[in-house]
């Protein structure tokens, strides 16, 4: 986010609100923004989801193509995750090669999905050592108001759960659903001085000393974590954050499974 600054007075306001357990959009510190989503709106994608988390609007498309396996995993499919932060979504984003920021987002989302073993990669093998399915997960932000990590993860998981392997298009038999098992979800926090807030807006992100994301599987176990920005966390901060994240992802997961 080049050239994106936040006035000191606004930063101060956000902190003062947080000290009273308040947010600029009237949430509590441990409350996510309202979530809405649409599934498979993109006809050309094998699976897609558009997720709105507050004003953050993210579109994820899944494409599958036959390809060669990695030599060390000859009977496993391959997952490739990309993220593009385009000027469309915010004037602070620039066209061109992926920024550090977008690479970090793609890698954190990828890690949550990969480490949870959400996709059964062995079922994506066509011919051991020769041919496997490559799963491309492309994240595109349409409107940015903070917390790409959670919005992109939810959209990616929804898109994968609704994706089809286009085998018939490549003369490789009948189409079948992408073999997915679980619902890895993330919760992202920021730290303002000594206070933790979940699901930060852009203003909150710009005021933050630190950002922390944790990915949690269906059993409430942790699958990936990422600390960003220059600030630091105490042991108590981490434990408290993980506790909040478990509760939030549990509620979110049951909601998504029910299709709400």
């Amino acid at each position, binding site marked *: 986010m080049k050239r994106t600054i936040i006035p000191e007075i606004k930063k101060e306001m956000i902190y003062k609100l947080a000290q009273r357990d308040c947010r600029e959009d009237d949430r509590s510190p441990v409350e996510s923004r309202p979530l809405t989503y649409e599934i498979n709106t993109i006809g050309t994608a094998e699976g897609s989801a558009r997720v709105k988390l507050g004003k953050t609007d993210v579109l994820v498309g899944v*494409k599958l193509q036959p390809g060669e396996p990695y030599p060390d995993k000859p009977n496993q499919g391959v997952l490739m995750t990309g993220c593009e932060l385009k000027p469309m979504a915010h*004037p602070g984003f620039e066209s061109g090669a992926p920024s550090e920021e977008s690479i970090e987002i793609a890698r954190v989302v990828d890690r949550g999905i990969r480490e949870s073993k959400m996709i059964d990669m062995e079922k994506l093998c066509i011919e051991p050592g020769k041919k496997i399915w490559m799963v491309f997960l492309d994240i595109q932000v349409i409107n940015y108001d903070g917390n790409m990590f959670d919005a992109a993860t939810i959209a990616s998981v929804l898109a994968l759960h609704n994706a089809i392997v286009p085998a018939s298009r490549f003369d490789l038999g009948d189409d079948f659903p992408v073999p997915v098992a679980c619902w890895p979800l993330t919760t992202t926090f920021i730290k303002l001085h000594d206070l933790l807030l979940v699901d930060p807006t852009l203003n909150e992100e710009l005021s933050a000393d630190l950002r922390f994301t944790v990915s949690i599987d269906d059993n409430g176990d942790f699958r990936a974590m990422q600390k960003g920005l220059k600030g630091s966390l105490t042991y108590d901060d981490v434990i408290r954050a993980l506790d909040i994240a478990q509760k939030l992802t549990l509620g979110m997961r049951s909601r998504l499974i029910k299709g709400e």
Partner: protein
Amino acid sequence: MTDNIKLIGKDGLRLDGRKADELRPIKIQAGVLDNADGSAYLEWGNNKVLVAVYGPREAQPKYLQNPAKAIVQVTYNMAAFSSDERVRPGPNRRATEISKITAEALENVILTNQFPRASIDVYIEVIEADAGTRCAGLTAASVAVADAGIPMMNMVSSCAAGKIDGQIVLDLGKKEDNFGQADLPIGLVARTGEIVLLQMDGHLTQDEFKTALKMAMEACKHIHGLQQEALRSRYAVNFADMDDGEAEQ
């Protein structure tokens, strides 16, 4: 094998049931993004296009600045998942060309001389492609520039005509584009009749070209009405709905 595909049936209708001079359904919405100065969303058949506009703002880097007028910069991009084959992210030669001709078309109608040293940046994102994305992009971009409140003389409307099975038709679909014999996308300033974008590929005789161009121009006039309607429904105020105090102000 390509010769075996019949694009026009015995009843004279096309694969998707359209008549020769019939457009696919078009839906335009203005002002759909929060952070952009102007924006538009357009669905045209299965094409889905989002456009964001920023500016006039200081042109960066500085050597791009023109001391006499604003520059218009367009970035046309197809999302990775927008097509049957995954599109590799990043600019390619096709996108670069489309960006350039779209910018040149828009420069015709934007009053760039009012904003020396400034830049007007237009970002066209094709999120689902179904042939005719450059026309969809330019049409939506005009609405987005207007939505940004940037002074302009007119809007540009865009549409393609082409040839399939030896017959001139309007607005080629994906199969028609792949297996047809010609494609002629144009951009028109509907109120003045100026053509500000014109490309062609394939094979057309002189008569065929005239028929196709006229057909595309007529369609552009219709599309211009849809663009106006999109802006009207975003900004029109119904004075009857206001209470008296507000109406007097």
